[in-house]
């Protein structure tokens, strides 16, 4: 066996705190090592060429690269040695950057640790076996979860690229948060005017199968071959028959239903179409408010519906779809205002959230675009905007910036002046965060052209006095306390993870951070991929985002799906479990523990019962290997021998 060892300097990243030359020298002393060297940037083209050349020149058959994390460059170097004619599983990496060089300053100790890491990799690589991938067919359909602007963009791009798309949206209509906005920054475009056509495209595209008011029940399978169970929630209206005429909504006597679309700014009817431009434009009954459900009698909608679409007996329905890739675009949620007790929570009707104000500004909103105070329906003259209402506040668990609030506050201040010319807006801010094309200019316009008064400081308390709301805050630039008598207060409540984000991540087997936002594969270089191949991210489910970024990610995710599907076959990872039928005693404990039902019972010609692994289903976790009492089933590339050789490399007494 002739092992080649390559120690990377990574510029000064590794060489700064690890004596790389000494690591190479020590490696040379290990039996089996035929060649060891250190190199400035092993991942660079000349660095990779050096590996290829050394394989030929020194007749190497196993390679160890001591560099960054294998999560970063394992694939890079696997391809390198493959090009030089070696099986790609004859590579091991020692992570001497993230796990050593970057976490300690003592060069002596780091170097010792790096030598150990390299010894372990050498011990393991000498146990490695060549593995060969098999290929399997891809199902070229894609599932998009979430019908906000990011999900719609991904769905449309995929569909335009010729893929069959299954789009699942949990609310009754697509459009997401953007469909609720009045105008968009920094152009003051009408939001629904630019989104509406996209929504129509989604509804009419022959390649897009839209499941509105539906949720993901279960996800099974793996990249290329997923089985998805979708729960179509009962709407109590047969959408095949519903024409969206709206007669039912007009006549419905239950007038006090919570209006989810308008964030509760005003009540709606128990049977409703969420908004005039809704796609699909179909009615739905809210059984929490419908008299038929609460009292067992009413039936007005059933009587009035011209097509007889109402069906009070409707039940949820589960449908199954098969796809090959998944785009997750489940968006974000907003902080519950009730937590902000210093601002009265939701005790004061004239303290509302930014999205509620957006609905008041909107011409198709509950007030037809007339700004009025929820308490007495009068027109407010003094409006105070409070940015960072929850954001950048460790004490409530939101230490991050919500990103888009500074911009929408500036927009709302501008629109307020347009709606009510004799009004005065005040904006309390911590910092104005407006990095984006035309963004900073926009916040300046709000101040300079529209006269919004920006006060740098936080608001400590909001309380009522007579008909006014008193907003008390600090003006840190003047070093004084200020109190403003406002008619209406708008809180820029923090953007948080969407409701149910964690449960969704668990169904998808993708990671999420402390706040519930999904974790991308690499924060810089793989922004829409996840660590689960075949699952991609788009939009604010990954972190708060404004519209352009969400649309960009939607398209990016679609591009990733299209490039994945540009092949007909995918290679399976051969690092899966394998049964040694001589050693197997047929106890089938592995069958019971396998999380993927990838193990079945098999009978050999001799009549002996043994376990058998279904190669395409095995995901390579290795639970079976640690279960097997006789070591008969071994996860390839992580066999008992391979892992114990690593232990032995560092635990010699």
């Amino acid at each position: 066996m002739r092992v080649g060892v390559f120690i990377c300097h990574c510029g000064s990243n590794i060489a700064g705190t690890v004596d790389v030359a000494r690591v190479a020298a020590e490696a040379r002393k290990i039996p089996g090592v035929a060649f060891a060297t250190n190199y400035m940037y092993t991942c660079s083209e000349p660095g990779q060429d050096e590996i290829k050349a050394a394989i030929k020149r020194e007749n190497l058959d196993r390679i160890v690269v001591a560099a960054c994390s294998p999560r970063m460059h394992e694939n890079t170097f696997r391809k390198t040695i493959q090009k030089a004619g070696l099986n790609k599983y004859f590579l091991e990496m020692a992570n001497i950057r993230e796990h050593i060089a970057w976490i300690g300053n003592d060069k002596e100790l780091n170097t010792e640790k790096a030598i150990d890491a390299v010894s372990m990799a050498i011990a393991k690589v000498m146990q490695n076996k060549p593995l060969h991938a098999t290929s399997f067919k891809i199902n070229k359909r894609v599932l998009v979860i979430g019908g906000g602007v990011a999900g719609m963009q991904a769905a449309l791009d995929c569909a335009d690229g010729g893929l069959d798309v299954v789009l699942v949206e949990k609310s009754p209509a697509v459009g997401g948060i953007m469909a609720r906005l009045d105008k968009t920054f920094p152009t003051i475009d009408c939001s629904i005017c630019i989104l509406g056509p996209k929504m129509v495209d989604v509804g009419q595209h022959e390649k897009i199968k839209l499941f509105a008011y539906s949720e993901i029940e279960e996800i099974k399978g793996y990249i290329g071959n997923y089985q998805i169970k979708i729960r179509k929630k009962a709407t109590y209206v047969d959408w095949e028959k519903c024409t969206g005429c709206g007669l039912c909504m007009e006549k419905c006597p239950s007038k006090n239903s919570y209006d989810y679309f308008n964030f509760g700014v005003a009540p709606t009817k128990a049977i409703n179409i969420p908004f005039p431009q809704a796609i699909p434009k179909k009615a739905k009954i809210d059984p929490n408010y419908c008299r038929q459900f609460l009292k067992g009698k009413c039936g007005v909608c059933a009587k009035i519906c011209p097509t007889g679409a109402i069906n009070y007996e409707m039940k949820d329905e589960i449908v199954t779809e098969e796809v090959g890739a998944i785009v997750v675009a489940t968006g974000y949620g907003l902080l519950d205002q009730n937590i902000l007790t210093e601002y009265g929570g939701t005790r004061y009707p004239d303290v509302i959230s930014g999205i509620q104000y957006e609905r008041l500004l909107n011409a198709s909103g509950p007030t037809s675009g007339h700004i009025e105070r929820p308490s007495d329906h009068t027109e407010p003259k003094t409006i105070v905007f409070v940015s960072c209402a929850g954001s950048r506040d460790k004490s409530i668990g939101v230490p991050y910036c919500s990103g888009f609030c500074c911009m929408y506050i500036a927009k709302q201040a501008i629109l307020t002046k347009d709606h009510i010319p004799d009004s005065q807006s005040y904006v309390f801010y911590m910092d104005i965060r407006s990095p984006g094309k035309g963004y900073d200019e926009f916040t300046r316009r709000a101040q300079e052209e529209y006269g919004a008064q920006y006060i740098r400081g936080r608001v400590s308390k909001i309380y009522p006095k007579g008909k006014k709301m008193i907003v008390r805050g600090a003006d840190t630039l003047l070093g004084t306390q200020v109190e403003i008598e406002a008619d209406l207060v708008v809180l820029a409540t923090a953007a948080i993870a969407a409701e149910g984000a964690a449960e969704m991540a668990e169904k998808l087997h993708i990671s999420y951070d402390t706040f519930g936002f999904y974790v991308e594969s690499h924060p810089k270089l793989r922004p829409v991929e996840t660590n689960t191949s075949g699952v991609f991210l788009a939009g604010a489910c990954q972190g708060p985002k404004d519209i352009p970024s969400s649309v960009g990610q939607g398209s990016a995710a679609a591009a990733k799906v299209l490039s994945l599907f540009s092949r007909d076959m995918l290679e399976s990872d051969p690092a899966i479990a394998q049964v040694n039928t001589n050693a197997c005693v047929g106890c089938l404990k592995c069958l019971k523990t396998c999380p993927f039902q990838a193990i079945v019972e098999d009978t050999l010609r001799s009549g002996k019962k043994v376990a058998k692994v279904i190669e395409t289903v095995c995901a390579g976790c290795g639970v079976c290997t640690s279960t097997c009492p006789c070591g008969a089933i071994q996860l390839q590339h992580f066999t008992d021998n391979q892992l114990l050789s690593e232990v032995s490399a560092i635990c010699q007494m």
Partner: protein
Amino acid sequence: MSDVGTKELRIVGFLCNWCSYGGADTAGVGRFKQPTDLRIIRVPCSGRVDPLFVVRALLTGADGVLVSGCHPRDCHYSEGNYYARRRLEMLRRLLQFMGIDEKRFHYTWVSASEGQKWQQVVTDFTKQVHELGPLHDKKEKAD
């Protein structure tokens, strides 16, 4: 840099590829300084960790063993960490019958985004093992 001050001890860590190995990477990227005693072995899943690996390490020279996987319910393979939790909890209770202080063994859950938590886990466990001192009378490493 061992902030414990005394001579380094030998600590072996088994980390699952998807969460904890990533968490250790995240800690590195964030330059969260840690004691240097730990040597990391990457496994696909904490469910792949055979309790005998831990025993083998402790019997042949390790002074402490750390196993870390994905948080319960967040396993890349759905339920591998549940198997790990049962096996390792059983192991923890058995160690004293082998004459090994159970404090030399620790299992925990660290996600790929929890760099700071990883720093804490490594620092705390290293300190704990140093308080117990070496498990074996080690010969000086032969050069």
